[in-house]
């Protein structure tokens, strides 16, 4: 009888750890997937900008500066490496774009341009998608980090070198007022 119990307990423990490991892998993949979603949208925005600037150039003779700011911010954002760097560069680009959208209000001809209208909707949705992808990424990072820190999954996480991920924050005055994410432990 006792000879049976010990192997059964051992198998149960091993099975338990395997399931934790699998759950961690799943969460890590979800974080990676969410990050690639953000990446896709950021790339899409980078692709839209040359088109936008090209369309606007003809109408906005006196706004050279605004347009060059956007172009510069774009190339900086494309060169950024780490998550934190990227966050900073991309929020700079967002700022430049929203200033541009304000300036556009003074150019009714540009606003009537069919091509520009389509671009504007594309830009709006891309901005939204970035925001939602960031939301979803930060959610999955929170779950993943929680799992890594909590017992007993932290044992497995340490053993197999699962590292915590950074949140993707945008440096923006209005976003700073938002209450920070809190860990529930």
């Amino acid at each position, binding site marked *: 009888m006792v000879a049976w119990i010990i192997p059964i307990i051992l198998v149960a423990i091993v099975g338990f750890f395997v399931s934790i490991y699998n759950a961690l892998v799943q969460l890590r993949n*979800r974080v990676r997937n*969410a990050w690639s*979603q953000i990446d896709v*949208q950021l790339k899409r925005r980078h692709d839209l900008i040359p088109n936008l600037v090209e369309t606007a150039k003809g109408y906005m003779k006196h706004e050279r500066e605004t347009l060059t700011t956007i172009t510069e911010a774009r190339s900086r954002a494309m060169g950024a490496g780490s998550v934190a760097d990227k966050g900073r560069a991309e929020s700079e680009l967002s700022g430049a774009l929203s200033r541009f*959208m304000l300036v556009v209000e003074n150019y009714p001809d540009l606003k009537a341009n069919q091509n520009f209208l*389509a671009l504007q*909707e*594309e830009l*709006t*949705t891309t901005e*939204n*998608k970035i*925001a*939602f*992808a960031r*939301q*979803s990424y930060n*959610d*999955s990072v*929170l*779950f993943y980090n929680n799992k890594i820190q909590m017992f007993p999954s932290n044992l497995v996480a340490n053993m197999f070198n699962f590292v915590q991920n950074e949140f993707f924050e945008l440096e923006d005055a*209005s976003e700073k*007022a*938002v*209450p920070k*994410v*809190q860990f*529930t432990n």
Partner: protein
Amino acid sequence: MLLFIGMAVVLCLLGYGIGYTVSPEGGGNLGLFIAVTIWLVLSAMSVFGGGSLILKLSNARPVTPDLHPQLVNVVEEMKIAAGLDATPKIYIIDERAPNAFATGLRPEDSSIVVTAGLLSRLNRDELQGVIAHEMSHIVNRDVQFITVAGIMLGSIALLSQVFLRGMWLSPGSATRRYRPKSSKVGPQGHAAIVLFTVLLAILGPLFARLFYFALSRKREYLADASATRLTRYPEGLASALEKISAESIPLEAANQMNAPMFIVNPFTGKEGMSLSGLASTHPPIHERIEILRAMTQGADFTSYQRAFSKMKGKPTMIIPTSGLRKDKPAAIREPHPDVVKEQTKKAEVRDVMDLMRAVNGYAFLICACGLKIKVPPGFDQPAIACPRCNRENTIPRAQVSDVAEAAAVIGAMVGSLAAGKSGGEPPVATETAPKGDYGREAPPLEYRRRTDGWESFACSCGKHIQLSPAFSSHQVTCRNCGRIILVDA
């Protein structure tokens, strides 16, 4: 979940009772087995059968990005926010009634259908709210849940119909044939079970229906909560619901089976308000709007739960505890710039219209719900019902007609001339004894409130000042002369 189990219990009891009545020796278990089999077979048929039947029936057209770029974009945004793997297929129905619904039993092959009427009425933020609500139905697997529950309801109705008709055709056959042999229950016990089954067959479908509707309403609240969590903007959905509920065009594509999936109850026209009770698939729309508008602190589940409890006046749980536990605070975002522009434009038009009304002797009342009621000059009723919230607002006497108003103004002037004395009608704020330390400013006036309702009185300059029932401060400033008037409740 409890409601779902309740329905299952009714189904099982019914099956067992019918089986037992037909053949007491082991028939109960067989009946139970048959009941569950009927339910499973019907469920399987609906799962593998025409899931997209409704789409074909309603002449839904698939939407491509060049047909309606904004709709496609908004759906994609919500797909990203919800973290779905595949974008649901999008369809448009050419109907004027503004509505939307989701179909598809699995998130991977789901579709979102909107009517042309919806697209023409909503702005970007509102559309986003509606799509988020439908996306939540997909993510929460409500389509599955409601379909399975609906089929259970159908099975219960089917079983009890068959049973009752059988009883009608051969009454007593069940009881007379029975000779107690080795059974544990005596003849009385047997009769009791038969009676119970008959009762259950009559009442069962009724209860199952109530359970089903309660379930559907709960999933609606949940979808609203999930939608605000996805968009982080409760006002978008709230104002969309408001716009949709203002219409009373019936939707032809709706039927009993898919009604729970719509954003608002497709059967609720103007006369359908009586439906919004126990026998409705959707909670009353004004309650949903009220909850969404009460979410001022955040767009997360906890905030929705708090707003829901506040609206109901008791701490009823609407969000499953598992959802609340995983919840984290989410801040409300800013409205879309185009929407802000549209609102400021509307506000400007409204200001101009109000100015013209004021010139023509209209009076304005602000209802406690925030709506500005325009009272025409000839209006002679003592009270007016708010068109939005139906609350009775008593009209201050000074506003009943322009004649009365003129009289009031004169009264106020007389009152201000004879400072210190209170004018007859309307009341006039009285001078307090000057304390002397107000510098060059005029000393504050004093006004004593008479009721808790609407009140208006005249400042010493003749300007009318209105106090709403919600007024709680201790002083107001005259907008004409800038004098401070102390209000004594």
